[in-house]
């Protein structure tokens, strides 16, 4: 898969989102990775820019794995920073629960932004103009960037090659979040798009097949909300383990009680006793190869 001229993707893992570098006289970088990786993000961006001026940092949405390097990039490059308008009040308040930080045992360094953009705005980034498309679902205020000229969609976590970012909000009082996810996928289906650059994983060209997989997953969650509840728990615990690398097995039940979002999902949807909750989670993540038991500990494999 060959990306159009002037677009470079710094493909990261699952703890950090990808960083998309759009080159022009002044370069734009989309998303900044997770806080624990901030120094690597700065080094990678420096390496990619080779001395080109870094003009603007832009976020698809403000989850810890997409905005965690914002503060570090700002310190190093003094770049103008732009975020989706819907995220602005949350960033102003910096409520760690709303931002899914402390409540999910995640961290991000606080940052400030210079301006915002919203659905329908057109941003000149790199060599192309990009239309901002609202992408509620995984994050209510998330956006995507679409270039009709380049036939490229920068989708954030609204569409990956295999799925999309977990729809947390549906479990926490926003019972329209899955319906919004469906509308977002339909908006993507209506675009004339050869390449999707996702927030995680490699850029891909077969957009139709990715949409088909995404719709099928979504249908599963719509039919049985506990599927979504289990998925969110697995995503959040795997994410935590990617940062911690290892945790004593005996501590897992207490950890699942202590992290507010995990405890609430269990109370509200899964209703398992702490030990059973822990056993199910570890067995399931072991089965898919995300974790393994090693002696008396559970360790991340990713």
């Amino acid at each position, binding site marked *: 898969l060959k990306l159009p001229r002037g677009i470079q993707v710094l*493909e990261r893992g699952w703890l950090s989102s990808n960083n998309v570098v759009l080159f022009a006289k002044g370069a734009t970088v989309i998303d900044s990775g997770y806080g624990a990786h901030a120094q690597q993000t700065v*080094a990678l961006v420096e390496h990619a820019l080779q001395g080109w001026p870094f003009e603007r940092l832009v976020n698809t949405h403000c989850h810890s794995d997409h905005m965690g390097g914002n503060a570090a990039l700002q310190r190093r490059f003094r770049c103008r920073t732009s975020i989706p308008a819907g995220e602005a009040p949350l960033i102003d308040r910096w409520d760690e629960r709303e931002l899914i930080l402390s409540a999910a045992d995640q961290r991000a360094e606080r940052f400030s932004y210079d301006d915002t953009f919203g659905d329908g705005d057109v941003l000149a980034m790199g060599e192309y103009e990009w239309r901002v498309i609202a992408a509620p679902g995984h994050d209510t205020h998330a956006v995507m960037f679409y270039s009709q000229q380049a036939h490229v969609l920068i989708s954030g976590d609204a569409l990956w090659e295999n799925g999309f970012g977990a729809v947390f909000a549906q479990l926490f009082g926003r019972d329209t979040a899955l319906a919004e996810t469906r509308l977002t996928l339909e908006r993507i289906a209506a675009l004339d798009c050869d390449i999707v650059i996702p927030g995680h994983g490699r850029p891909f060209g077969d957009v139709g097949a990715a949409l088909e997989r995404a719709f099928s997953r979504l249908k599963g969650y719509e039919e049985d909300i506990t599927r979504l509840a289990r998925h969110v728990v697995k995503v959040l615990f795997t994410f935590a383990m990617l940062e911690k690398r290892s945790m004593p097995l005996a501590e897992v039940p207490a950890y699942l009680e202590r992290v507010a979002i995990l405890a609430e999902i269990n109370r509200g949807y899964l209703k398992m006793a702490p030990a059973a909750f822990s056993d199910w989670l570890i067995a399931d993540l072991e089965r898919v190869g995300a974790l393994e038991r090693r002696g008396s500990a559970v360790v991340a494999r990713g």
Partner: protein
Amino acid sequence: MSPDTGLCEGCLRTLDEIAAWSAMSAEQKRAVLAQLPKRGARP
């Protein structure tokens, strides 16, 4: 990144390799991956 080896402490790739990763062919990626076990064995 490890200051001693210049490798990412998680994936054992160099900054060059991470930056170029999404532009590499499958063979190039496999060639990098094949070197990783050796790198992990360093003291």
